[in-house]
C-alpha cells in the first residue's frame, strides 16, 4: 500500500519536504514504516535523534498495524510551551 507520511520541525527540514510517500506491504507496522522512512532519508535518525510517530493524531507504538487510510506523521520530541 502507499502511505503518505507528514514530517515536522527538524525532520521536515532534514528531509527537505513536508510529506513523503512510502510504499509499504499491506498490514505493515509503524516499525516497518520507520525503517522505510530512514531508508529514504538516511540522515534523519542521526540528525534528529529519536523520532516519534503518530497515527490519526494519536502517538503510536511500533507494533501498531497501519491501514492505507491512516494519517501518519513522524517528528522529533515536542518542544512547545
Amino acid at each position, binding site marked *: 500500500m502507499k502511505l503518505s507520511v507528514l514530517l515536522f*520541525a527538524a525532520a521536515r527540514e532534514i528531509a527537505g519536504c513536508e510529506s513523503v510517500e512510502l510504499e509499504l506491504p499491506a498490514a505493515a507496522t509503524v516499525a516497518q514504516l*520507520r525503517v522505510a522512512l530512514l531508508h529514504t532519508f538516511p540522515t534523519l535518525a542521526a540528525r534528529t535523534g529519536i523520532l516519534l510517530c503518530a497515527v490519526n*493524531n*494519536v502517538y503510536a507504538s*511500533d507494533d501498531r498495524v497501519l491501514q492505507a487510510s491512516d494519517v501518519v506523521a513522524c517528528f522529533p520530541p515536542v518542544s512547545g510551551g
Partner: protein
Amino acid sequence: MIELTQQPIDFSTLTESVRSDQAGAVVLFLGTVREFTGVARTSWLEYEAFPEMATAAMQRLEAEVRQRFNVVEVAISHRYGRLELGDIAVAAAVSSPHRAQAFEAGRWLIDTLKESVPIWKKEHYADGATEWLHPEPVMGSRPEAAIPVASTFMSESSPEIVPEA
C-alpha cells in the same frame, strides 16, 4: 476552551472564561519568549505546529485534567508562527474550588502539554544561528499515565530508530 492560533493570545479573555461562582481559585500560567537562556541571546522564536493533532492533544489534555483534578473550568491557548521577545506562546488557566487544587492542576496541565502536544520551537539567536530546541527535562510532577502510548513507544522503539546499514 481550546485554541491553537497564529494571532497574539488574549490571556484576559481566556482567564475570564474559567471564572465561576463555583470556584474560589483561578491559576493562570503564561509561557513567554525569554531573551536569555544562559549566555545565548534569543532574537525571535519560530513555533511550528501539527495543527490537527495539536488541537486533538489539547482537547485530550482538557478531558484528562478534569478527570484527575477537582477543576471547574479549563482553558488552553497555544500560539504558533513567529514570536518576538516577550510574546505569549502558551496560556493555560484552571479554576477550582480551592487553591491547592488549582495550583496542582495548573502545574500538571502545563507540564503535560509541554511533553505531549506536537509543537516545536526553533531558536533564532541574536548572532544569526538557529536551533530546533530539545524538550526540557521535566521537573516536578511527571505525568506517568498521561501519554502512555507515547511513553511505551519511546522506550520500546529506541532500537528501531538506528538506520539500517
